[in-house]
């Protein structure tokens, strides 16, 4: 099915900015009325510098109000709008039209994989957050705190630079082929979160977390497919962090 619409810009325009024509093909599914997912194509006009989220918002606001997806911050920090865009997991607000299509081209948008589709591009995130909660994702140090801060060197703090950068968008976990076939695998995002605490010199629960990582739902499921690293919108070297956790499990220490 194709719907057309009189051209209107998705974002603020100044007169001199050239517009390009796009076909946006969205995999839609509403369990209240659809037996299975189906593609709908929308013809829209956009600027090359528009975010894909601008284009999807435009479709929702002016063409297809029932189109359903999550979004909030619009600039890649809240982690709401992970989608499969042209076959790759990305944040729709951090992907520009010019990065994925030329004028006259097509952008395909599907829900991220491995989680139950609730409606259109919106999936059930509960299993993802359950895996997150399983790794004890909180700082543990029961010894009395000093009056001021605990001391930590610049180098020690830098060990958490990548892992603490995670926004829990699920781009990594839902691009992982192991996760697709085995939903009980905690997945890359949960391992990144575990890394953040395992390598925090102030934290005292390293052994407990290494134990969780050593279980059959843990780090050994990883087959280093690198999909997670390629999918991460925050450029976290996830596969490398997973390898560091594997090593820590093997040697029994961070």
């Amino acid at each position: 099915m194709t719907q057309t619409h009189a051209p209107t810009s998705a974002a603020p325009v100044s007169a001199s900015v050239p517009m390009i024509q796009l076909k946006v093909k969205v995999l839609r599914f509403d369990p209240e009325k659809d037996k299975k997912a189906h593609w709908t194509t929308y013809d829209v006009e956009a600027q090359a510098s528009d975010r894909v989220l601008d284009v999807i918002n435009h479709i929702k606001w002016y063409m297809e109000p029932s189109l359903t997806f999550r979004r909030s911050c619009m600039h890649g920090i809240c982690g709401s709008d992970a989608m499969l865009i042209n076959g790759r997991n990305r944040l729709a607000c951090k992907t520009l039209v010019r990065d994925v299509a030329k004028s006259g081209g097509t952008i395909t948008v599907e829900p991220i994989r491995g989680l139950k589709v609730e409606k259109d591009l919106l999936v059930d995130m509960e299993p993802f957050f359950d895996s997150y909660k399983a790794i004890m994702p909180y700082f543990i140090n029961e010894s009395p705190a000093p009056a001021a801060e605990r001391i930590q060197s610049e180098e020690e703090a830098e060990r958490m630079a990548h892992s603490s950068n995670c926004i829990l968008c699920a781009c990594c976990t839902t691009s992982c082929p192991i996760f697709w076939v085995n939903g009980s695998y905690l997945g890359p995002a949960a391992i990144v979160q575990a890394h953040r605490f395992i390598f925090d010199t102030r934290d005292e629960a390293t052994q407990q977390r290494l134990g969780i990582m050593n279980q059959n739902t843990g780090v050994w499921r990883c087959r280093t497919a690198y999909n997670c690293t390629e999918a991460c919108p925050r450029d976290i070297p996830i596969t490398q962090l997973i390898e560091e956790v594997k090593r820590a499990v093997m040697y029994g220490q961070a």
Partner: protein
Amino acid sequence: MHHRYDVLVVGAGGAGLMAALYAAKGNVSVACISKLYPTRSHTGAAQGGIGAALGNVQEDHWEWHMFDTVKGGDYLTDQDAAEVFSKDIIDAVYELEHMGLPFSRTPDGKIAQRKFGGHTRDFGKAAVERSCYAKDRTGHMILQTLYQQNVKAGTTFFNEFHVTDLLIEDGRCRGLVAYELSTGELHTFHAKAVILAAGGYGRVFKITSNALTLTGDLMSIYYRKGLPLEDMEFYQFHPTGLAKLGILVTEGIRGEGGILRNDSGERFMERYAPTIKDLAPRDIVSRSIITEIREGRGVGRDKDAVNIDLTHLPREVIEGKLAEITDLARTYLGMDPVKDLVPIQPTAHYAMGGIPTDLNGLCLSDGNGGSVEGLYAAGEQACVSLHGANRLGTNSLGDLVVFGRRAGIYAAQYARQVEFPDMPENPQRESVDLFDRLRNSSGKDNAAAIRKELQESMMNNVGIFRNGPDMEKQVGIVQELKARYANVGVSDPSRRYNSELIEAMELGFMLDCAEAMTASALNRTESRGAHDREDYTTRDDENWLKHTMAYKDLNREGQVQIGYKPVSLKGFTRAFEPKPRVY
């Protein structure tokens, strides 16, 4: 469905998560209701830091922080709030560190601190390193850390629940009603105390750093009850949003030495704030940028931006301490701050005003000491008033933890002392009516089109520079948009995940906030802090050293009644006399 908790928290950003943690420590049952998953909250978008006089880099004192906050607020700041804040924030930052927050560090392993706009040593002598930071993703780390601690504490969350009504009768809050997005079901929450911490309403403006979800829902619900919103005319435009997009670029770039330049490359802030230059407070820098643009010294295709220059800084500073904004500039503008000048323009950022509270977070019902029993507020939603007429950079994150904590403590203390109040006969009536109107309207008006007109007109008429005629025009525009809003129809009939219905409801909330803001701004015939009038260019302490309280006229649609509340001009131990504000 019906639920019952001693304390309910609305909003799961920094203030809400802090309030939930502290309420739970008070030995009461607590639940947190949020329209988003907690980690999606906009606290995560804060970048540059949280200000506290730790003195890790240079000598510092809470008195200096208090002075800067009061002066930064153009003396409309309540000084008792500023004193509590400047003292409490020191322990609060250490507490965040003890919760595991991965702060950047000094060479001797302490929390790193950097300069920020309006933060000075020795009562204005020179800029001081007060902003405690975790690279340029401090808000992200605060949000993550506080959520982690709530997971540890086992806090109950109702995620993707939209609050549709507060149940207030006979001056007492009894709970609230919320709409569950995944089912379309209305839930009634019965509570002894409710804490509102659901953030601001920046989406009333076209260019904004705010998330799409920041639509002032709870402010509007409060206002619809005939309760006041305080100081709505004071809205902060952050000087540096990415050109055209409004995405926040931290003030930390100037704290690290970044320089604003006009089309000829001139460091124009030397003319506007000779002492602290680029590190002047945000209202002053935003006005200076707009003045440069108006006088033809802007950059870019439309000459509507100026440049921020980081090119003289070492690559490791830019890519390390400013990693986030480097990524943003590269992603959205295809520019590299290591070698390119980056075009920026002011972006609507932060509401100084909001739901009036006392120092314990208790919501006020008028300007004479009246309150709403059992109802608390904290964070951007609230107006305590710490920020007065202009908030200093870093003081929003500080506000969240200090006053979120206080609201949690005092709400729990109150809940321990009282029984559950009686519930209204039909608690869901207003909410059912609200949705029936939206679902059954036969109107053809498009919510998105009305929203766009609201955003553009607010930007033009109630923006950085204001004047009487433009704001009078805006009063009429908002009234007209409200009339059209009554004809907005929701075409999607589905019950599950009906985001069209939610967006239509949110537009109604935004229109209320815009109405209160425009009326308050039109009423204040002076220039103070972020409220700058071309027809009343000076501060007028004799007539206007007072807070505005805007009430919806419940008998005449579209009319706003204005009242006032005195400013606390003394702290508990220190007081700073209003003086001309020069930097």
